[in-house]
């Protein structure tokens, strides 16, 4: 059981970075951003291609982050300047990124066999096995990302972005250009999602053009599971909840797979899970249970 737990938690941490990105759009900006379905494999494709071309894993991670931010800016411009509804803007970017990702990799699947990924390098430095190494790298990255988000959303710009999610009219009356704050939020979100994609590709040992399918649902599942189980008292609390939510999600998946659910049914299972979680407030109200989630 413990053999299964460490790699599961490690995967949860790598995907937690993506979940934190989804949190920025879904909760902070109050937008369901589907760009992540394309920016996740974009991060993977960018990092994998660079590493195959001989660049170091950290450089690859950083460029993947930049590529992700760029995709967020595209969605942001479509939404704010072209007045396309956020959901549709995200879908357009996501579909466009499928072609972009194929171009970046040159083919549908790029193997990292024989390439020094950050995990392989860290393993030889730490002298641990692969699962333990992944856990530690995941933990370090998640803490860095979490600390960055805690700092950033406490700054003047960060507060303006949060206010945009709550009340655009109010923050415009305070002199903030909401087009800019929305674009900034999408930029950060998709940058983080791409970093997560790059990490997952390095961990899996390959990048695949199809690996983004279902990203948004996994992200939402992590956010909602985290909020329900671990609370939303403060912003710090929310960030920790999302990370823990991502880990719990991985554990749930590992358990149902171990119990014999066919892997092909995974996405169906996740969708049902998220649909149930999203309808929780209504179900609770109908049953007369007091509201726990905000």
């Amino acid at each position, binding site marked *: 059981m413990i053999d299964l737990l460490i790699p599961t938690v490690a995967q949860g941490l790598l995907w937690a970075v993506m979940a934190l990105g989804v949190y920025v759009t879904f909760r902070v900006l109050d937008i369901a951003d589907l760009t992540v379905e394309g920016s996740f494999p974009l991060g993977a494709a960018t990092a994998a291609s660079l590493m195959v071309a001989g660049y170091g894993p950290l450089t690859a991670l950083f460029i993947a982050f930049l590529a992700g931010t760029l995709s967020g800016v595209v969605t942001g411009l479509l939404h704010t300047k072209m007045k396309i509804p956020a959901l549709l803007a995200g879908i357009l970017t996501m579909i466009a990124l499928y072609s972009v990702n194929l171009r970046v990799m040159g083919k549908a699947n790029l193997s990292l066999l024989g390439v020094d990924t950050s995990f392989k390098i860290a393993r030889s430095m730490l002298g641990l096995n692969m699962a333990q190494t992944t856990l530690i790298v995941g933990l370090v990255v998640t803490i860095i990302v979490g600390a960055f988000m805690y700092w950033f959303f406490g700054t003047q710009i960060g*507060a303006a972005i949060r206010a945009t999610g709550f009340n655009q009219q109010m923050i415009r009356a305070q002199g903030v250009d909401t087009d800019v704050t929305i674009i900034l939020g999408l930029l950060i979100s998709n940058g983080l999602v791409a970093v997560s994609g790059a990490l997952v590709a390095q961990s899996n040992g390959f990048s695949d053009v199809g690996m983004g399918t279902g990203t948004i649902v996994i992200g939402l599942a992590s956010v909602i599971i985290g909020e329900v189980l671990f609370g939303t008292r403060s912003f710090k609390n929310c960030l920790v909840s999302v990370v823990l939510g991502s880990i719990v999600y991985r554990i749930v998946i590992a358990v149902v797979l171990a119990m014999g659910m066919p892997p092909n049914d995974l996405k169906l299972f996740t969708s049902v899970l998220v649909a149930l979680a999203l309808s929780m407030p209504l179900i609770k109200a109908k049953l007369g249970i007091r509201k726990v989630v905000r």
Partner: protein
Amino acid sequence: MLLVENISKTFFPGTINEKRALQGLSLHLKPGDFATVIGGNGAGKSTMLNSIAGVFPVDEGRVLIDGEDITKKPEHKRAKYIGRVFQDPMLGTAAGMMIEENLALASRRGETPGLGWSLSRDQHEHFYELLKELDLGLEKRMTAKVGLLSGGQRQALTLLMATLKKPKLLLLDEHTAALDPKTAAKVLALTEKIVTRDNLTTLMITHNMRDALRYGNRLIMLHNGRVIIDVQGEEKQHLEIPDLLAMFEKASGSEMASDRLLLG
């Protein structure tokens, strides 16, 4: 201070829903003018305020503040000069953020946000004193989310936010209309206190004629997108409701039909 020159605004032009909300409206406010604005439904009161605030562009005319032409400036750039309180108590604050976070945002109205902390320690002290003056007990709940406050508390807070950084112009769009009479009176008293203390140039829309007569040094009545009555100073102090009705009939050539305006 505020100069509105001949502005016009038509909504849905060329359609069956075409609405000529403003038809060559002009208005000049002197520094420190506290003008109440009345008029029936569709007279153009809110459209005038929103045109000044830059919520939408006007079709014709100019808006100047302190001699600066702001007609082409977007809403968020005008915020530097203008403090606003809306009719809907939900609109003036960010519900999911703390009272002090909202105040911190308002304390930087019109400034480009940077990477410094949004909320600093010395601000906390300052906000505490300001909230205490409101006498609503909010100073003890500074870390509470604004969404937990009542409508009246939210309007009082929004008023404080709009005037925290002294605006050149304060726009109040029926900001007590959604409150119960007792709370409305409290918020109005607070409004008068702040406007008088800071000598703010103010436009206050109200649907209540008595309030329009009681507050401010000037009264403006709109009809069909124009100013039809504009009284100030001595003349306004001695004005009574029947005088106002007679003036309206004379100016518009029609009878005051809105019960809401009379009794509200």
